[in-house]
């Protein structure tokens, strides 16, 4: 990126005064502004100066000044979020400020080598501003002029990086730390994330759907990636056999935390009252346990997930646009995801679901909205899934259905 056109301002400093923004350099929390300013002063990139000037102007007028556009790399239709300034007359240096969304490694695990490479390529072609990470899970490189996009991408692509989703496409996935470090992980979130997104990579890059489609991968019902609310298809780990109880460790726990804590914080907090106190230990009635994770969370050492592990698929999560926030609904209570065959079957099911959605959805209608509109029954029929009592909180409370015989 060119840094030619970068005269210092009247104060002898590279950056223009940003008195309102500067307030955000105070206080103990790391300041994005300090970072940006240092970067700008070091690299003398005028784009950053322009962006800061425009941001200062936004803080003053309380309005935003970006508009979208269309920039992409060869063969892809998505992955670049294009931004042109609406006040180029006032602040020409912020004319362009496009973002490249990169798909990071599942679980957001990095080595320093790959990151240093990334920084070097990015500093060469773009602003040097990095967002780690976007809410969907992308590693976002923010601030590239259109002319540098292809070259920057090619260099990154050579190093193993690829663009993420945007628009009416499959979006970049997100997965929790999973088996990499978490003892609660019921399936290999990293692997399933990787295989699924790899399989659908064409649909990530070339938007051709009624609307966006997001996958998120949580290793257990604690749902550390918020998959239930933030993904159209949530993969949430669970287990079919009983919780493992090590009553010797329960005893240790009680010694440390007290019997009242066991009663108040574990037994009484079980949503289905599946736990009973038995002497100095506890007993869990397996058929009452709904796999909420709470007791395991509190007593990590004494209790652990079962051995017959897999995942549930919940569908329809999304933010509140038009219909109010929707949480994903239980659609596939349990599926194995261990062997390659398991994962192939899973992907085959996902394909059926995506195809059904693509065929049935209105424009700008998310999967959950489509299911709601046509009814869960029609959806199940369409994707050839059996009804299951776990799909609902309760059977219907109205007689308004087409009975079948």
């Amino acid at each position, binding site marked *: 990126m060119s840094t030619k056109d970068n005269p210092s301002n009247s104060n002898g400093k590279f950056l223009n005064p940003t008195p309102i*923004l500067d307030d955000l350099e105070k206080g103990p929390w790391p300041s994005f502004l300090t*970072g940006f300013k240092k970067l700008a002063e070091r690299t003398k990139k005028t784009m950053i100066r322009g962006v800061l000037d425009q941001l200062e102007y936004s803080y003053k007028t*309380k309005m935003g000044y970006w508009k979208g556009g269309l920039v992409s790399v060869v063969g892809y239709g998505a992955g670049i979020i294009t931004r042109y300034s609406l006040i180029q007359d006032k602040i020409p240096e912020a004319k362009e400020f496009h973002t490249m969304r990169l798909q990071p490694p599942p679980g957001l695990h990095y080595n320093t080598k790959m990151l240093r490479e990334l920084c070097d390529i990015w500093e060469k072609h773009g602003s040097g501003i990095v967002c780690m990470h976007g809410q969907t899970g992308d590693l976002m490189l923010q601030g590239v002029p259109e002319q540098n996009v292809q070259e920057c991408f090619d260099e990154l692509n050579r190093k193993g*990086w*690829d663009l993420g989703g945007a628009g009416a496409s499959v979006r970049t996935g997100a997965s929790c730390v999973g088996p990499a470090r978490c003892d609660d992980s019921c399936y290999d979130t990293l692997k399933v994330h990787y295989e699924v997104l*790899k399989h659908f990579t064409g649909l990530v890059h070339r938007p051709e759907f009624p609307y966006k489609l997001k996958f998120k991968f949580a290793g257990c019902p*604690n749902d550390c990636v918020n998959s239930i609310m933030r993904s159209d298809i949530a993969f949430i780990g669970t287990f079919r056999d009983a919780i493992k109880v090590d009553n010797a460790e329960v005893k240790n726990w009680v010694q440390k935390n007290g019997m009242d804590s066991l009663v108040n914080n574990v037994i009484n907090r*079980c949503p289905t009252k599946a736990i009973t106190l038995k002497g100095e230990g506890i007993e869990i009635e397996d058929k009452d346990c709904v796999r909420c994770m709470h007791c395991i969370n509190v007593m990590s050492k004494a209790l652990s997930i079962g051995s017959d592990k897999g995942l549930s698929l919940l569908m329809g999560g999304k933010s509140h*646009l038009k*219909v109010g926030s929707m949480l994903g609904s239980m659609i596939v209570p349990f599926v194995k995801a261990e062997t390659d065959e398991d994962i192939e079957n899973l992907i085959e099911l996902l394909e059926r679901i995506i195809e059904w959605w693509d065929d049935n959805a209105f424009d700008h209608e998310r999967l959950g909205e489509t299911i709601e509109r046509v009814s869960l029954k029609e959806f199940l029929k369409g994707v050839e899934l059996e009804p299951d009592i776990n799909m609902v909180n309760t059977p219907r409370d109205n007689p308004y259905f087409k009975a079948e015989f």
Partner: protein
Amino acid sequence: MTEKAKREYKTVEHGPYDYRNDTLHPVVLKNYGKWKHHDNPRPGVLVSVAESGDVLYTVRAGTARQITVDNVRTLCDLADKHSEGYMRFTVRNNVELMTTDESRIDALIADLEQAGFPVGGTSNTVTNIHHTQGWLHCDIPATDASGVVKSMMDELMHEFRHAEMPAKVRLSTGCCAINCSGQADIAVIVKHTRPPRINHETLAKTCELPKVVARCPVAAIRPTRVDGRLSLEVVEEKCMYCGACFGACPSMEINHPEHSKIAIWVGGKNSNARTKPAIMKMVAHGLPNNPPRWPEVNKVVKDILMAYKKGGRPYERLGEWIERIGWKRFFEETGLSFDVDMIDSYRMARTTFNKSAHIRF
């Protein structure tokens, strides 16, 4: 042939970066899927114990999310020094460095703090806030995100560093009514208070009219002619200022420096622990959009947090605390006031009504 098409390099459609390509710390790799239990020895530090007996310490630190190559390189330096050259980020823009050597935790923490990355955010702290784009980059924001997050975290620093809350606390921000950062224990979201003003100059040129009409959830937009040209109009009686049309078409100008206000939502919960996941509820609105520090918003957030800190029981998430004490007492304890606009009026409104004689005096 365009310049692009002339290039020789052929893209490889990798998909996600291949995590198998040496992204995992060696102890992680060795014990992959074989962890036994974990603990939170102190704020900012996690310990994971593997079936093999291996023990891994993780130190978590906050970042501004909107960072720079310089920040990333600094973190790389620290990872090389303390963490065998590996690090990870959390879904909440915290960075994590790992060590198997308990004795080096203090040095690692000191280095992180020194480099400007405060250590904390684990267990029952208030962790880093979900962050969106705002005026920095988005095309539809009514407020900023980087500034909101910074000003809130400045005030919540003690809670980030100390695990003193009844349970985990997650906050989120949304710089337009869409709220890209999802729901949370407490969320700060734009709420407009006037219908969009229509820019008839640009409307027909920039947008597909039927698409805009279809976007309105309450069918408040209808075709019309302005000065002979096809355009749209908004039936003000129906419009509830949601801004959905603005996302479809920038000529439906919903943002306004004064009339775009801030609302506060509480009780969002995505985890399945104990209670089922729950959608957050709106408990304050009409707060001014007041950069660079949004003091009115921060006060409400803090009032809620402090009432919860005082009243919540162990392992009780914010929404669970409210359910236990009841919404009436929630408003009393936080000093907020319930008003008629907090009564649902949308499609499922009926399901929120108190269809019982249960009552609190």
